């Protein structure tokens, strides 16, 4: 049976890894290999922590938004409460976003959907609406260029049109990004 791993255990393990990865301590060929492996492991752990922390913070923000907009008329008019299924899909969408892309800002929409926004400037932005269904609605403004579209979000894969759109709006190079 699996047992929970305590933070102390993890920290001890990491301390050992850091010790192995320390430069200049390897002499033999075998020791150099061990040092390289430890280095790779440390880099991987640090990268995962940075990404997980970033996405965890965005997901926590989304949960707060869901609470704020959980009641009918949250906008002072007749807005529908934010849809819990839309929130779940928005979380799945953010988890599936390629690591090289910035995370969005988020807000609720009057129909209960979640709006994820990448805003570079007033006239350079892309907005994705996530409702309870699998079809994502998006629109963008890029100077005098503008447009809209609908794409399917299935099996945790962010549609390429949206990935490319975010990369273009946010000036992210190397956007032939792998799905997280």
């Amino acid at each position: 049976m699996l047992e929970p791993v305590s933070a102390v255990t993890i920290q001890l393990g990491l301390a050992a890894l850091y010790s192995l990865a320390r430069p200049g301590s390897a002499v033999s060929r075998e020791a150099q290999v061990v040092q390289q492996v430890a280095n790779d492991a440390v880099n991987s752990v640090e990268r995962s922590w940075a990404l997980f922390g970033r996405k965890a913070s965005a997901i926590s923000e989304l949960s707060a938004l869901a609470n704020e907009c959980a009641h009918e008329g949250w906008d002072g008019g007749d807005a529908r409460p934010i849809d819990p299924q839309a929130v779940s899909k928005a979380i799945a969408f953010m988890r599936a976003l390629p690591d090289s892309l910035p995370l969005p800002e988020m807000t609720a929409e009057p129909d209960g959907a979640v709006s994820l926004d990448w805003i570079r400037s007033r006239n350079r932005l892309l907005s994705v609406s996530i409702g309870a269904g699998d079809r994502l609605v998006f629109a963008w403004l890029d100077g005098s260029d503008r447009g809209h579209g609908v794409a399917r979000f299935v099996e945790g894969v962010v549609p390429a049109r949206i990935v490319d759109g975010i990369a273009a709006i946010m000036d992210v190079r190397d956007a032939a990004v792998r799905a997280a």
Partner: protein
Amino acid sequence: MLPSGLPEVVADDEPLARFLMSSSQFNALMVKPAAYMPSAKDGNTSVFRHGAEPRESLLEIAGTHVVGERTLHGVAICTAQQVRASELNVVAQEPPPRHANITGWPVVANDPEQTKAQQKERALLIAQHAVLVRVPR
């Protein structure tokens, strides 16, 4: 003339106030497009024919007709001309006094997602021009 004393036709240069009840509806740069999306119930976006000033009367409208027990976080101001340039319209709709609706949002028959995608693009067009008035808390 309407009961509020305003003309029935909303002039192009009239400012329109959209009350923002969530701080997530704007950021340091701009009012987000979602703030202008139409209601799922009547298909319109509710605004009031008022500019950023006088601030007291703007906040009085919000307090009397919109806010209730909620918190007003900001007000988005655009002009009727900016709405019309986005291929939408503004129509006076009283009561309450000074109330108007942004109307003419596109609808694609039997395709709610395409409908919303087109509406979202129009909302982006308005939002890029909107001026944010922050409400001190």
